[in-house]
């Protein structure tokens, strides 16, 4: 029986990999890329949903703002202010000839 030189299997495998290094790199890139796609689309979905929630929040705030506007308007109504000023606070509007004009130089 002739003894063949002992072959190192690991070496052969590594050599083989080295020989096709580009294929291996591409394969790794492919897998990483696929994972990144999944991650990115997940992230995009999350952001979209967040965006939508913010839009809904904006609408809600807009509605609240409109209601507050109405409230402000009814509280700041001129006739109401005039009444409070004259009745409760005893104020009165000066006649034009009672006005004092202050000129800022």
């Amino acid at each position: 029986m002739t003894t063949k030189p002992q072959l190192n299997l690991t070496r052969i495998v590594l050599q083989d990999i080295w020989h096709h290094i580009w294929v291996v790199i591409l394969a790794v890139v492919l897998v990483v890329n696929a994972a990144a796609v999944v991650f990115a689309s997940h992230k995009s979905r999350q952001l979209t949903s967040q965006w939508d929630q913010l839009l809904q929040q904006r609408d809600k705030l807009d509605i609240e703002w409109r209601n507050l506007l109405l409230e402000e308007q009814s509280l700041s109504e001129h006739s109401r202010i005039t009444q409070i000023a004259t009745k409760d606070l005893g104020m009165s509007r000066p006649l034009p000839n009672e006005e004092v004009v202050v000129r800022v130089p």
Partner: protein
Amino acid sequence: MSRQAKRKQKPEPIQWRLVVVVTFVCLLFTSLVGRAAYIQIIEPEKLRHESDMRTLRTTSRAVQRGLITDRNGEMLAVSVPVRAVYADPKTVHDRQGFEDMRRWRALADVLHLPMEDLVTRVKSSNKRFIYLKRQVTPAVAEYIKQLKLPGIRLKPESRRYYPSGEIASQLIGITNIDDKGIEGIEHTYNGWLTGKASKQKVRKSRDGKVVERLDVVEEGESPNDLVLSIDHRIQQLAYRELKKATEIHQATSGSVVVLDVNTGEVLAMVNTPSYNPNSPDKLQAYKMRNRALTDAFEPGSVMKPFVMAAALEAKTIKPDQLIKTSPGWMRIGGRQVRDSSNYGDLSLERILVKSSNIGISKIALSMPVEQLLGTYASLGLGSFSGIDLVGESTGKVRDGHRWSDFERATLSFGYGLTVSTLQIARMYATLGSEGVLYPTSVVKLKQAPEGVQVISPEVARQVMNMLEGVTQKQGTAAKAYIAGYPVAGKTGTSRKAVAGGYGEDYIASFAGVAPTHNPRLAIVVTVNEPKGDHYYGGDVAAPVFAKVMSGALQMLNVEPISQREQVRLAGVARRSK
């Protein structure tokens, strides 16, 4: 050879088994790959469709009608989202909706509807959609949602609130229940104020969150806000004073228009009687009309200054001319024109101050009728004012080319032609702006529009100075006098025409510009059919004018002048004549 020997010693594999297994495994994989390829490449549509059915939704984002504000940002119309409650009777039947009557009782109570009506309406209908109540508040809507009645649903809509109420109701107008403007500014600027909801396709995850936005189905349009030229403080003041006067004099109606002399913007436009636009179920047409611009009437003496302007322009009279008015009446073509007393010889200023019909008739007869009609027309009589609101009246001079002398005389004291309150205001504003006629606008302007010089500046100034006497002690409208702000104005009291002549009803009016040395505002007050003892413009309309004018000038921070200054300015004006 030793190899062969070795093989013979080893157990022989059964070939056919291997073949079967390999074939089977190959077939299995081929069919799996085939199936996958079929799904992915050859026929992907069906599953894609199934997936879309479960995740794709069309959402629409409701938009509210634009806001209307006054020139200082005060809200005049605000839309607030509300809900409409509707029933789908078929679903109610299919899902035994009438099992729990307690819930129906609660629904009827919260909607303020009689329960029997509500239930029979839903029971007897076989439609898929009936409104139960429209425009319910979000709080009530939430309560109804909690009731969880099958087949009772909510639909978003919007409701318009008018915080100023009846004060500006005719001007702003109203929207109908479907949010469409049907009157006033709401009608004219409907397109500008209305937005369109955008519709978009989205992908929703299982828990209802939007995870992907796909294409836009319908491009939306965001509504625009509208800033009016109205000053709400002045509007409010004018309404309050006019309403008071209308009540005191038991008048049928009244209008006030406040114009900015230098831009033609409308600062206030009010009418009585008015209505509350927030409770639109009791609308009456006669209250909804914006009388200040829809109702044209024979104006009476307020037209006299323009006869004067026309004559001065045509140079048929001289500024220092005296005109004989004794004995207080005059015959023209068999008809009589009279003054309230014998004024003797009057200067041009005194003719306006005393409102002498004879004096002004003589001036009118001194020039061809075309001259007078031309001046009236150039001041906007018979044409739209540029305000662009529904129902605007242009006013009118009677048709025809032949004018008798008497008709020419009546034309000079404001009969035989009709104008609206807004038009009178525009004419007086022209006097105040040294003869430049501006188009009127209810929308706030960034800069003054281009005006047309229709009267020469000198003539406009002369007439303004003459009118200053009207509010002095001997004038017809001492009640329009304002301490601190000199006023140039004119009263008018005209009889209303009825079939076959003139009746016993009057229109009292006062038109004026102030302050005369630096005009800012032109205000016209007309009171229709005052019933009391007083019906003269100087008694009915002038006090309203004075209150609104002085208040408005104060609000606009116009500097008042002292009594002494006022006398001095009057002296300068007289000398410059």
